[in-house]
């Protein structure tokens, strides 16, 4: 048995469909919904009620995780407009960005064998690249000009790249302890 959910995630939480969102409100609404639909509420209900509640609770979790994360939120909003950010379907990237990525990787490799300070400097740089792109994505997605959506798609894909670098920086950081 599958549940059918045809609304978008913003509707689920009753918040305005916008990239710039009130994270506190989102979290409050998320909690309110789980207070009603989490399987713990159905521990003594029928087996079927429990199964359906697991699916709804999972949907609410997925919706929250998607909207709470800036990259996921960008991907999701573009997908609502029928724009895919799937990497396998589109391998074209801005050559300049790719060059920067290669440089970042090299710096990461260098930091691995040097110091925590070098790693922190690299991390600051990635964070500022990340924030700048996030802000721009927000402007486009919340703006009125749909002709820029393709630019947003590129930016979201770049954000995906940067989040991967972020994770690698974290792994290198762990190796220092």
């Amino acid at each position, binding site marked *: *048995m599958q*549940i*059918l*959910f045809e*609304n978008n995630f913003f*509707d*689920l*939480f*009753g*918040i305005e469909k916008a990239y710039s969102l009130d994270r506190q409100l989102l979290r409050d*609404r998320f*909690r*309110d*919904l*789980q*207070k*009603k*639909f*989490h*399987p*713990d*509420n*159905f*521990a*003594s*209900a*029928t*087996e*079927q*009620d429990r*199964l*359906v*509640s*697991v*699916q*709804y*609770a*999972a*949907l609410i*979790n*997925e919706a*929250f*995780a998607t909207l709470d994360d800036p990259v996921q939120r960008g991907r999701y909003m573009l997908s609502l407009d029928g724009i895919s950010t799937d990497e396998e379907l589109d391998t074209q990237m801005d050559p300049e960005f790719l060059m920067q990525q290669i440089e970042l990787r090299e710096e990461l490799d260098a930091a691995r064998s040097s110091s925590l300070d070098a790693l922190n400097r690299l991390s600051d740089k990635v964070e500022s690249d990340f924030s700048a792109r996030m802000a721009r994505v927000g402007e486009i997605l919340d703006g009125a000009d749909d002709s820029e959506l393709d630019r947003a798609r590129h930016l979201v894909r770049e954000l995906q790249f940067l989040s991967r670098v972020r994770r690698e920086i*974290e792994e290198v950081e*762990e190796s220092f*302890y």
Partner: protein
Amino acid sequence: MALLQISEPGQTTHPHKYRLAVGIDLGTTNSLVAAVCNGEAKVLLDEEGRSLLPSVVRFRENGDTQIGYPALAEVVNDPMNTISSAKRMIGRKTSDIKTLRDHLPYQFDDESANVPRIITVDGPRSAIEVSAEILTVLKKRAEYVLDGELDGVVITVPAYFDDAQRQATKDAARLAGMNVMRLLNEPTAAAVAYGLDEGSEGVYAIYDLGGGTFDISILRLNKGVFEVLATAGNSALGGDDMDRLIAEWILDEIDHAELSTDNQFLRQVMVVARAAKEALTDNDSTVIKLCLPEGATQDISLNRSSMNDIIAPVIDKTLLPCRRCLRDAGLDKADIDGIVMVGGSTRVCSVKEKVEAFFQRKLYTGVDPEQVVAIGAAVQADILIGNHTTGDMLLLDVIPLSLGIEIMGGMVEKIIPRNATIPVTRAQEFTTYKDGQTAMSIHVLQGERERVSDCRSLARFELRGIPPMVAGSGRVKVSFQVDADGLLSVSATEATTGTETRVDVKPSYGLTDAEVEQMLRDSIVHASDDIQARQLAERRVDADRAISALESALAVDGDAYLNESEHSALLECMKSLQRVKDKGDVDKIKQAINTLNELSGPFATRRMNASIREAMAGHNINEFSE
């Protein structure tokens, strides 16, 4: 209003009947059982007024198994048959515990077995059976103190337990004849005990160092919701490891190389090592007394600062997961409002000092660190059984380790990331890679590493019946579902031709259903009980549960979501279950319950769909009125 009732089913089912439910902390070193009595959660004591049950089981030739203190007393005399720290072995393969085994005196049967069994004078025993023995004693204790049969239990597990370890714990409970309502993560249970005690709001880290496991969880407490933001840990690190380091130090000190292979002597050294560690909690120095062979004795003195140096590696090892947990939660140390210390090993002074120095935050040690987990589990049990005597709350937990499947080149593709809030479902599509390929094998793994060989293998299965097509056009959708216990189920669907093939996962680890059944038979033979009678009783309870839950749902929402013929079909089905139940054929009762469940599926879905629409509409109304 009808929809409100859906969210509070506990209050609609027999509101006057108080049902018995307990929380159980199944620990590496000690186990406890707690229950909510008169609105207050408390640990249940044994006949001699003791709260702890040592997690030690001694098997004897005459089949008269000793559990708890009597077994603990024989640890040194009968090391091969007296099993302690079963929790460190549960849900692990022989190869997984190889390093661990070097420190254990036991002999294992089959090297290649999925479930290692220890050879005892009473036959081979797995960690699952050992745990079931401990659970049985706690169950009896609870039924004696509460004066009635238990309707349900909540059992705690380390947050960092993987799927196999959780499943094995549930199997142990099944062997002990318990209705497990939930496997609850230990740090979350501790947070409940603290949160309700102090009415706190904010972000807390729970540092839980037990006998053999370490967990760190970061939670946000807000208006009765306990939201785990991230968890990390090490399911093979704890006080036992400190004891071992101290024992190794003792062995170095005494200069009797020939004794380092003497199992009985080694057990004695472990026992005095632990005693020394405990003594140094309150004293600055202690004297370790050793009995050497042929009646000789030797005294060794140890002071606290030397011990701190000896055990430092264990404590330092806990700090890396703390760092990772903070990062996964997206927080800095400064965002944490306090650290809750849980687990017997946090009594060790240098643990407290190092944790305080790391987080630079206030430590909460108010509730007994050994009781706090059982207390929290009891509160959750009280809520899940529908009594709600301590008020309402909701626990939102996470999956500790990523789940993925094997892709080409022996690599793992992650499908559900660690620290995703549960329950969680994810689906992923895979395509055939050969022309005419009609089967696809799927290997499910758990862990953070990229290579298959570095992750825990959870299950392997083969999806057959894919219509032959050119490479890349056969599509298989693999769906993962992790429920609120953190347990995984996987199904795969071949969807190219519209004919769907479903496969359910058979675990490649742990016990098969048949093995559990056999153990159940064996254990009941031991207890000279009647398996048929027990199974019938259990099925009848299931039937009653199904009927009463559906009755109350129908009473509230039957008219709103069912037409007349659907309604009467359900009533008829319920009656027929009642008739089958009274007759007493175990299989037929099981079948009738399944039939009723299937028939009531659309009803459940419609109610819940309406409920979610209502909740969404509620938001919008709020918006206008604000």
